[in-house]
């Protein structure tokens, strides 16, 4: 008899509990963090993004809310075919519900398509391609932290407004560099600045001396670095050897992260101007979160990409909770409907084209004498308000946006 009672109670509990989790596929919300764990973007994204995703799950209180959430991670090695086959396997065989982060635009664009075909969800934080909310926009993708448009326009207009009105461009000679230069130049001219000259350097380049001498001779107040990764780092290092910043010119990095500044050191990076969506020393909330993050990440402070992963996963879980479902397309629609609110990015929204909207900030790297301790790197030069930080909805050519 007792067995029968127990069996009855168990069945009843299951039946009662079931509606709450009925729509969660196989009872678990599975989050896959897919990024570069060992290559050039490992410091910007990498294991830090996995930690950020785990912190979001804990802060959401998934355990208390009777929601089972699991975080897994993999290294896409910056190869689109590796990324695409991991994504397919995650969706098909391992029941992953959402993929987050994914730096390297070719990999992100490939997964954007796979996610759409499989009807799952994709939260981009690491990739910069503004096409993700433009021509390639998808009802299954949200682009969270930043994009090339925001960096080019933010840096361009905010610098001109704060006095840097003459520019010289140092551009990597391929499609990405050209696009960055073109976007920034437009904004500089529109804001009333002047472009005194530009020079194209091969991709990749290790010796920037002749290009930097041209930039120095141009006497432009701002030298815009329309390149990325190792090229930017090399250009900044060599500019410091030529004494360009001490000579009164400033470098503007169009795609530079705090981990790059950390690697360069303040001695070399001082005076560099850059745009970020997040800085750990913004306010009490970001400081306390960053402190917790650093404890788990060998004292490294979070980059904006890692902060973006936290914020995106938190908002995703809130939408899953409200919807009581982890169906990719429905959750993304819900995420666009709900206003976003978290301790790192404050209040924000997600637009119809999948673009997350929040303010961007123009920072200048401190002199070694101004810095009070490790990771105290930036001083705020300007805030770009949320409504101006990202490409206007009607200019992106996103098919999801009704004309």
């Amino acid at each position, binding site marked *: 008899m007792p067995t029968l009672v127990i069996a009855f109670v168990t069945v009843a509990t299951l039946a009662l509990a079931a509606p709450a989790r009925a729509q969660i596929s196989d009872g678990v919300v599975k989050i896959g963090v897919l990024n570069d*764990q*060992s290559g050039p973007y*490992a410091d910007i994204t*990498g*294991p830090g993004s996995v930690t950020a995703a785990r912190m979001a799950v804990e802060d959401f209180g998934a355990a208390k809310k009777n929601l089972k959430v699991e975080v*897994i*991670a*993999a*290294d*896409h*090695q*910056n*190869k*689109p*075919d*590796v990324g*695409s*086959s*991991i994504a*397919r*396997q995650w969706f*098909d*065989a391992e029941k992953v519900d959402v993929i987050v982060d994914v730096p390297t*635009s*070719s990999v992100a*664009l*490939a997964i*954007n*398509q796979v996610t759409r075909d499989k009807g799952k969800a994709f939260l981009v934080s690491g990739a910069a*391609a503004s*096409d993700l909310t433009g021509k*390639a926009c998808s009802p299954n993708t949200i682009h969270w932290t930043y994009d090339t448009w925001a960096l080019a326009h933010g840096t361009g207009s905010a610098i001109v407004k704060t006095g840097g009105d003459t520019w010289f461009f140092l551009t990597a*000679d*391929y*499609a*990405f560099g050209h696009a960055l230069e073109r976007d920034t130049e437009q904004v500089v001219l529109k804001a009333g600045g002047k472009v005194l000259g530009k020079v194209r350097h091969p*991709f990749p380049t290790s010796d920037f001396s002749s290009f930097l001498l041209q930039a120095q001779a141009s006497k432009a107040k701002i030298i815009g670095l329309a390149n990325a990764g190792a090229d930017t780092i090399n250009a900044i290092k060599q500019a410091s050897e030529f004494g360009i910043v001490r000579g009164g010119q400033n470098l503007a990095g169009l795609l530079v992260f705090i981990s790059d500044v950390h690697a360069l050191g303040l001695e070399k990076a001082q005076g560099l101007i850059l745009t970020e969506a997040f800085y750990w020393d913004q306010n009490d909330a970001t400081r306390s979160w960053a402190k917790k993050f650093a404890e788990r990440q060998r004292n490294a402070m979070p980059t904006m990409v890692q902060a973006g992963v936290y914020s995106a996963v938190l908002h995703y879980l809130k939408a899953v909770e409200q919807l009581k479902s982890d169906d990719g397309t429905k959750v993304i629609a819900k995420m666009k409907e709900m206003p976003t609110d978290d301790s790192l990015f404050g209040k924000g929204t997600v637009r119809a084209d999948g673009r997350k909207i929040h303010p961007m900030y123009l920072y200048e790297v401190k002199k070694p004498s101004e810095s009070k301790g490790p990771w105290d790197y930036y001083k705020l030069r300007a805030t770009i308000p949320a409504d101006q930080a990202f490409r206007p909805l009607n200019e992106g050519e996103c098919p999801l946006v009704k004309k």
Partner: protein
Amino acid sequence: MAGAATGYVATAEVPAAQVLRHQAIGFVVMAGFFAAAPFFGVYPVFLMKALCFALFACAFNLLIGYVGLLSFGHAAFLGSSGYAAAHAAKIWGFAPEAAILFGTMVACALGIVIGALAIRSRGIYFANITLAFAQMVYFFSVQAKFTGGEDGIQSVPRGTLFGVLDLRQTMPMYWVVLAIFLLGFVVLYRVIHSPFGQVLKAIRENEPRAMSLGYAPEHYKLIAFVLSATLSGLAGGTKAIVFQLASLTDVYWTTSGEVVLMALLGGIGTVFGPVVGALVIITLEHFLAQLGAWLTIVQGIIFVICVLTFRRGIVGELARIIRKPL
């Protein structure tokens, strides 16, 4: 390439009929393995990638293993065919079979141009010249408008094969890829075991002597080079359709290096070696992805072990143990 010299198995010692019999058994085992694998829980998309790279490694092996030419620029053929097939399928709306064929033809044409110039040199100079050409193709792909630069060509439609077979489903796509791989493999096998293949081996062993017997080594080398480029192109075009993308990874020099490692690990100059090598490398790349930063270290250790302990490669060592060429 010290391992290359020891990797050759002396085919002359074994009667031809015997060679065919146990290599035929090997072929059936291999075909059976790939046909059964998806039903035993091996993920088909992963297998398709392995098959594309296996064909690529086999094509590469034709040059290194049977003509003794180490090409360090084979990514140029894989990648350019991928771009051509992706562009044809996406922009011109070609059917998948036509897109793959177009990609293969582009690789063939590129093979004629690069081959005609490269085969004039040998040894390390040959490797350097092929690398230089491959880098030219790479920089062209970075700059050209239609390749999409860093972003690559994305969301290429898979389409329907001959207007009947819907390739958007995973399994039909898998059978097509398997058929293409087996076709390429049989073509290579026939080439290696034909009189033409015998001349190639003669050139590999002693070029002046082959010349003194009345053969023109340049012609043979060029034909072998173009064949190898064409089949690499077949692999590249198929890969572009499977993954629905073409990107810079496939034209970058690391891919040229990867195929050398596949052949080396499996066994240079063996028929089945490159297939095994490709399977091992792709499996490492795929399953160790979960290990994150450890991936490159584990890959490195495996290579060091391979070079130190079995220089003939996996299949080469196996062939030595059973005393039969594989």
